[in-house]
């Protein structure tokens, strides 16, 4: 029980962070600060250069040294960390906009908690906004796949016969298609100028359409076994309509499977989005996504020199691990109920 509370609260926390990305992130994810490429994370100080302790944490501005590859802190001016400051405008959901951020420092100081990328953009802000894109894509694609999968699976299992065969063969085809190559082809066929929102929706639709086959097979199996149960037969004997039987006696059996599938599909679809963006087929620059951020790690010098560029990987692992823990919890619970 305690484990369940931990897992769920961690997941909820992560999603809140992601939902409130604009509020938590100190900066706009696309703003370039061209004087600070690949700057390491800001150090949060309590004790200044003179050895005096300050209750309010502060940072120093850093600037590249002569050679341009190392950053040195300019100890002359302290930039105290301020909370609930005003900064770049952002929207939490379309319609709700604000410019208040949890924390920040006065310019020209920069509060870069996870360093900056090659354009001087704040990696921490980008991870939050990028995770929002990736996780939202994963969730929406899951909803889409489960909806299509459940409807088709139920239809196939409940009606049987020709419909069943057609749906299941179609599912086979979808499972056999090498979807990565399909996506390459789809992207190549589309016009070059695709705005971010269209690209995002396309991504979700493609993932959802490709992903319906497995849940639909599982749902079909359960529906098949459920509709043969004695009490279902009895209900039918008493004159219950097929729709009533489906709603009252058959579908409730599928909830467990659908939920478990959801837990499995969300991280899988998040990873799929990451893969596509990593390969340059997802959300394009300057918008962030975990995949496109990880894409820069393909370059040897980034991989070897700037450890903070791994931040999106950490975020990805955290989210995926959270969902897997949730799924295994659900699984255990289901076993408990069954026994």
């Amino acid at each position, binding site marked *: 029980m305690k484990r369940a509370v931990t897992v769920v609260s961690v997941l909820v926390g992560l999603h809140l962070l992601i939902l409130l990305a604009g509020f938590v992130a100190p900066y706009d994810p*696309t703003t*370039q600060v*061209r004087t600070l*490429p690949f700057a390491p994370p800001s150090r949060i100080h309590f004790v200044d250069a003179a050895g005096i302790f300050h209750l309010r944490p502060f940072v120093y501005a850093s600037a590249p040294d002569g050679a*341009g*590859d190392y950053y040195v802190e300019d100890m002359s001016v302290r930039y105290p960390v301020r909370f609930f400051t005003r900064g770049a405008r952002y929207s939490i959901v379309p319609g709700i906009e604000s410019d208040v951020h949890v924390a920040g420092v006065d310019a020209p100081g920069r509060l870069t908690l996870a360093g900056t990328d*090659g*354009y*001087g953009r704040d990696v921490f802000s980008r991870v939050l906004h990028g995770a929002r894109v990736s996780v939202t894509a994963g969730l929406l694609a899951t909803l889409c796949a489960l909806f299509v999968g459940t409807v088709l699976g139920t239809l196939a299992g409940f009606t049987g016969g020709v419909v069943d065969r057609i749906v299941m063969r179609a599912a086979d085809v979808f499972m056999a298609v090498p979807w990565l190559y399909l996506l390459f082809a789809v992207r*190549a066929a589309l*016009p*070059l*100028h*695709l*705005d971010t929102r269209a690209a995002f929706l396309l991504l979700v639709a493609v993932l959802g359409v490709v992903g319906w086959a497995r849940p639909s097979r599982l749902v079909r199996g359960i529906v098949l076994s459920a509709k043969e149960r004695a009490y279902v037969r009895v209900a039918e004997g008493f004159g219950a309509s097929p729709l009533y039987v489906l709603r009252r006696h058959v579908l409730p059996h599928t909830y467990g499977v659908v939920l478990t599938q959801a837990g499995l599909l969300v991280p899988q679809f998040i990873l799929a989005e990451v893969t596509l963006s990593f390969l*340059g087929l997802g959300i*394009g*620059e*300057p918008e962030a996504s975990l995949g496109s951020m990880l894409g820069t790690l393909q*370059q*040897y*010098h*980034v991989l*070897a*020199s700037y450890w903070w560029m791994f931040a999106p990987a950490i975020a990805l692992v955290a989210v995926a691990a959270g969902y897997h823990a949730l799924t295994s919890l659900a699984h255990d619970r289901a076993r408990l109920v069954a026994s």
Partner: protein
Amino acid sequence: MAQRLMRLIGTMFGALLVSVLPLTAATPAALFTPGEELQVERAATGRPGGRLVVALRAEPRTLNPLLVADAPSREVVGRMTGDLIHINRLSQAIEPALASAWTRSKDGREYTLTLRKGLRFSDGHPFDADDVVFTFQALLDARVASPQRDLLIVGGKPIDVKKVDEYHVRVSLAGPYAAAERLFDSVAILPRHLLERAFMEGTLQEAWTTQVAAGAIAGLGPYRLKEYVAGQRLVLERNPYYWKVDANTRRLPYIDELVFLFTGNEDAQVIRFQSGESDVLGRVGADNFNLLMKDQTSRRFQLADLGPSLEYNFLFFNLNDLSGKNLPQVAARQRWFTDVHFRRAVSLAIDRDAIVRLVFKGRGVPLWGNVTPGNRLWQNTSLPRPARSVADARAVLKTAGYSWRSDGALVDRQGQKVEFTIATSATSAQRTEMATLIQADLKELGMDVRVVPLEFRALLDRILDTFDYDASVQGFGGGDADPNGEMNVWLSRGTNHYWRLGQKQPATPWEAEIDRLMQQQLVTLDVPERKRLYDRVQMIIAENVPFIFLATPHVLVGARADLGNFQPSVLDHYTLWNVEQLYFKSQARSNGR
């Protein structure tokens, strides 16, 4: 700087001091044949022996000098072959090679070349004027379809090469041709005794593939083929008949074996070099260079930043004639692209310094013209170099009838929002980075720009064939410093005239003017006059901005610290151009590892 200048002066003197020494006595280093007319490299003194490993980005496609088109093939074939007149890669001036001397007729149409006597190909067969005549015959043969063929067609006619006697050839051109001596650089002289039969049978284009047996291929370069293992490595061994000797009359090259490994990409090359598996690193990007700098002393590298290269990177818009193509959207956007004010405004808004700083890590220079500071002789230094100014760019757009909506978006006279795509090659991280910076710069003008990285072939297909693109970031240059190498970019019918391809007549008066000036410089023999003409070309290009020049990277190379005579150049081939003079300073390496 002073050091580089000294080195340059040193080599130029070295080149001048090259003299002809008829050698009769046999020296311990190698056997000399009587009457052999060798070239003495005064600058070179070194220790013989050892094995030099070079990591190539890709596998060479061919070993046939006539068909070389890709960089790895050029890199390998260049070490196995010799040319008549050579461009010194440091001084960028010409110097004698297989031709020890030449004279030019008064009208500039005829050259008489004197060949070195008594030289032998790497298989021991003697070299004479017949080989030269055969080489040009093969190069100019349409069946062979050599990529070098077009360069040897002067004034609409192929150059004519005739044998005068065993050691003299006469080259006739249909018209006067400036810097004609440079045409001979990198034209590999072929052994007639090995290839004549294939030529007669019309199978020359199939000869000397990478499968060729080591005994069936020969050249006049410092190395000859020893072994080729497909997918892994290519090994060259010292050519015992090579025609250069050092100051101690020791026959060059010093190093016994040259091994080329095939790695796949730049990162793999860097990793091989870093781990000590390869000895020489060809051109690398600034980020990898900086990475290596960190352990330069601990791992004993010598890394060299040679300053600006000849390569220019540029943004250009699609100005192609789209009639007959079904591309209404691109055609609609061309309304902006064809407006010179629009292009000037874009140029003004681009932060070139940021490109140098972020993309080239400070190892580059901003550009406003096609000739980079790396080109010592031809740059027009009086080109305007306007500093970045968003305000000026906005003013230019305003006078051209553009305005801004309340949300900051730029709209044209018809109220159409200005949005377009910059297509880049997904494999070139640097050009994609440039495009991303430009995207942010142009956002300040209210332009909505998308960057789309495409697979390289798909991108070329759009630029050269379908014309289905708005704008792209590309790079050119890096070949010869002479303006003739740029002909196919600037002539309106040129195959690299990217912004508007396939023109039968110049589309604009200024393109016609460039055509005229480029043709004129081609036939002008007076160097200052040629410079004046080419300066004018550069000025017209800068005024009409068909290409928006961005920046040029420095040439960055490296080698093991104990590699002697390593004198990399900004011209291709950057590191191995003087491979015959390279040697290992340490006893252990020169004796083999």
